[in-house]
């Protein structure tokens, strides 16, 4: 399929797309949080009187909730405000609304809070300088403890030719969507109505309901255009506060974060420590031990999905006879852990690839040959006992090796070329539904997701509807409806949109075409086509304009209606291998192999990526333009994770670099040429065998840069990011 102009390009290039930060309602009040002044402490007093005395100011603190929340059961663990104990710096203590932002800030400044500071847990290795002992499970600092095992690990390690052990450390990285979180709430009669920049309107509704105690049926969430998500806008965040203020004041209320608040309050990837041990016999990986300490900030115990999911990425995509993994989610005084494009998978791939490259070097084996020999292939069994489905990694790796050979032949001295691999799986989420209306002129798809930029909604779903219906893309309209109008979908995350809603569209289009065939007196599915500007249906020997096939009710409704839904295909792991905690199966297997050529400044250790190539397993490419854009954007974002991005938390639990000057994302002049090639034919779970592409392209990037850096200068850096300082230390320049 050819790349078409993005359906949203005209609107966005005219400055006419309304994002969350642009919402503006007459009479609207401006809101701001009262932030906790310490990362850990007991609140001795919270005096809101002076703030309340200011003209036009409304303040809601913990004691005011009882009069505002609904009769329903409320989430008892997750509170809107710090109550009694503060657990991270800037945690909301109260929220204010005022006629202007400056008046809201003045009210925040007028709040008097007295706190008895408590000791702060800021760093994983401060808590566990050694690996957590057997008594750790009882510790309130452990949010999750996952363990899995298979095979004769101890025996394999004992009789191995060689055991290689290493420790890796990875930094906290932020999503840096350029649009900060923002919403405007209004009370419309009995309805709590909020417009917000979100990846999941239905997710916001569900969470707002459980936080506010009002039923989902009384809350309506309407998504705006989203100025970048990357996982950071996947969960309910500002909306309940704005709704409460709207309720308390009777006015529309705007709550938006400043960019430094965006950094300080954002839920994102936090630091981790990984220990890797690999036993090799006769050039084969016989057994692996993987241990993970993952900082999850103030995530609630038992609600941590990241640890068990991450373990899978630390084990794969390599054949391993026997393994033992143990992961701890450790609570520290930071905001809760949150998803960041392919949560923690780029860090996992960095560890796995760097480690296996190192193992091969230690054994005097060809590192690329060594990795290739162990790559999962379709039909293999993952360490956790799931059958590997169609998987394009080996093909991608072959293409990457051939490119790497060419680049090595051309590379000047001081340059290095490396290959990194990664894998990912499309998420299905909690299902997705669409409603279709086929009229005499157009096919309209009504669904509940806003386009967040990836193109998955507007370009991807248009392409699926066009291909399944046989109608040209310009005859397809993707319409958005809020949570009261559109059918349910769980959100634009996990690279799932094309797969989940695309399959729902396939089902609904098939139903439409069957109905039309019946009306034409034929079996099977009618074919649709355009003639003299009208949609025609043809089945068997009969052919008719759609307009004559509609019932009077359909005619009045604008067309024939159909619904489609997609639920996850069943996938399982071997639960016998799980000793504790939750591990997760994959919906499909998406591989990628990337090649980087880098140069390293011999004086400073600064790494520059000179050129880059991505070989991406895509199943079937549905919309080439947006697919390529996802790979280019994912690679660039990964270069930030690889080289510069590091949220630095002080011992006092303060985010030191809470702005875009000090938290460095890649700039235009730092991005190398990026060549993109898709590996097709290894079918995924999406329409036509497509695999989700929002996340997979970022996964191999830090690994690729690290391996190329080692090839360039010999520096084996075991920490992310590969800052000049870390490379210089590895080269003993510092």
């Amino acid at each position, binding site marked *: 399929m050819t790349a078409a102009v*993005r359906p949203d390009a005209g609107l966005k*290039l005219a400055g006419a797309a309304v994002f969350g930060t642009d919402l503006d309602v007459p009479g609207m009040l401006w809101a701001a949080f009262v932030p906790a002044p310490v990362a850990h402490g007991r609140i001795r007093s919270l005096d809101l009187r002076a703030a309340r005395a200011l003209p036009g100011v409304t303040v809601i603190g913990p004691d005011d909730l009882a009069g505002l929340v609904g009769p329903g059961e409320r989430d008892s663990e997750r509170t809107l405000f710090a109550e009694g104990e503060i657990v991270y710096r800037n945690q909301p203590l109260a929220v204010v609304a005022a006629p202007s932002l400056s008046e809201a800030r003045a009210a925040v400044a007028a709040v008097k809070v007295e706190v008895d500071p408590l000791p702060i847990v800021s760093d994983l290795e401060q808590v566990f300088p050694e690996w957590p002992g057997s008594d750790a499970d009882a510790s309130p600092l452990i949010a999750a403890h996952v363990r899995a095992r298979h095979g004769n690990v101890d025996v394999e390690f004992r009789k191995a030719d060689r055991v290689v052990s290493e420790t890796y450390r990875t930094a906290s990285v932020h999503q840096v969507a*350029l649009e900060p979180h923002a919403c405007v709430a209004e009370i419309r009669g009995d309805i709590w109505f909020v417009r917000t920049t979100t990846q999941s309107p239905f997710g916001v509704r569900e969470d707002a309901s459980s936080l506010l105690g009002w039923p989902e049926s009384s809350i309506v969430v309407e998504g705006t255009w989203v100025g970048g998500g990357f996982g950071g806008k996947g969960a309910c965040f500002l909306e309940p506060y704005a709704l409460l203020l709207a309720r308390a004041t009777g006015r529309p209320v705007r709550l938006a974060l400043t*960019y430094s608040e965006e950094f300080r309050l954002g839920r994102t990837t936090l630091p981790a420590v990984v220990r890797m041990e690999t036993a090799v016999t006769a050039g084969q990986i016989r057994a692996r031990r993987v241990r993970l300490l993952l900082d999850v900030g103030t995530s609630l115990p038992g609600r941590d999905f990241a640890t068990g999911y991450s373990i899978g990425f630390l084990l794969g995509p390599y054949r391993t006879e026997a393994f033992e993994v143990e992961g701890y989610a450790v609570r520290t005084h930071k905001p809760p852990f949150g998803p960041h494009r392919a949560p923690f998978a780029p860090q996992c791939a960095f560890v796995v690839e760097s480690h296996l490259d190192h193992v091969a070097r230690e054994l005097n084996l060809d590192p690329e040959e060594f990795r290739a020999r162990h790559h999962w292939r379709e039909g293999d069994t993952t360490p956790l006992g799931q059958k590997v489905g169609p998987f394009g990694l080996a093909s991608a790796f072959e293409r990457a090796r051939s490119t790497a050979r060419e680049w090595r032949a051309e590379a000047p001295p001081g340059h290095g070329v490396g290959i990194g691999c990664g894998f990912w799986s499309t998420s299905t989420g909690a299902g997705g539904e669409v409603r279709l209306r086929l009229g005499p002129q157009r096919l309209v798809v009504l669904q509940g997701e806003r386009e967040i*930029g990836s193109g998955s909604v507007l370009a991807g779903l248009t392409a699926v509807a066009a291909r399944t219906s046989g109608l040209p893309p310009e005859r397809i309209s993707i319409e958005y409806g809020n949570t009261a109008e559109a059918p349910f979908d769980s959100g634009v995350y996990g690279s799932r949109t094309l797969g989940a809603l695309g399959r729902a569209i396939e089902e609904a289009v098939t139903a439409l075409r069957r109905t039309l065939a019946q009306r034409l007196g034929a079996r099977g599915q009618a074919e649709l086509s355009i003639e003299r500007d009208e949609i025609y249906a043809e089945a068997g020997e009969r052919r008719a304009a759609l307009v004559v096939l509609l019932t009077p009710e359909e005619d009045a409704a604008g067309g024939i209606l159909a619904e489609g839904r997609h639920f996850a295909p069943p996938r399982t792991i071997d639960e016998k291998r799980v000793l504790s905690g939750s591990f997760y199966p994959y919906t499909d297997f998406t591989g990628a192999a990337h090649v980087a050529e880098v140069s390293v400044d011999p004086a400073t250790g600064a790494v520059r990526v000179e050129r880059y190539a991505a070989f991406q397993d895509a199943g079937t490419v549905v919309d080439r333009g947006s697919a390529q*854009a996802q790979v280019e*954007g994912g690679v660039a974002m990964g270069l930030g994770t690889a080289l510069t991005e590091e949220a630095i938390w002080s011992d006092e639990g303060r985010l030191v670099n809470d*702005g*875009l000057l000090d938290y460095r994302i890649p700039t235009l*002049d730092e991005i190398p040429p990026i060549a993109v090639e898709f590996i097709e034919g290894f079918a995924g779970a999406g329409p036509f065998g497509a695999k989700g592409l929002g996340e997979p392209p970022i996964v191999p990037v830090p690994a690729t840069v690290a391996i190329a850096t080692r090839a360039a200068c010999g520096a084996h850096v075991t920490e992310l990011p590969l800052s000049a300082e870390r490379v210089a230390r590895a080269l003993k320049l510092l």
Partner: protein
Amino acid sequence: MTAGQLRLTVNGTAVELADVPAPERLLDTLRWRMKLKGTKEGCRTGDCGACTVLVDGRTCLSCLTLAHEVDGTSVTTIEVGPEDALVGRVRAAFEAAGALQCGYCTPGFVMAIAGLLRERGTGAPREELLEGLGGNLCRCTGYTAIVRAVDALRTETP
């Protein structure tokens, strides 16, 4: 002229504003006073470039500019109509190159590129133009498609 009063031209239209406080930023004047929301608010610290507009044809970070500093000037924002041929050409190049995804950085990029081309011309060295865009951040595209749009603008005859 009384305190707080401002006269400027915005997208070709003469505008008179009253009671504009001295500390008000041009970004807020455009967005909240004039309801021109196409100019985006990102960092408000001059690091992201999303708020870039043209003041008398030159690029300007509206978040770091006081409204009173632009008194008497001509301000161009992303809302400017087809009468601004250069902005129109940048828009067309962005559309053709697919140089946008979420679109939040797009108005700033379009204005920054228009300003650069106006100042340096389409014949300016490529490196110079790309370096001139180092202050505009984009998190979605990896800049590759934006660079393709700039390359297309350089090669096309104005």
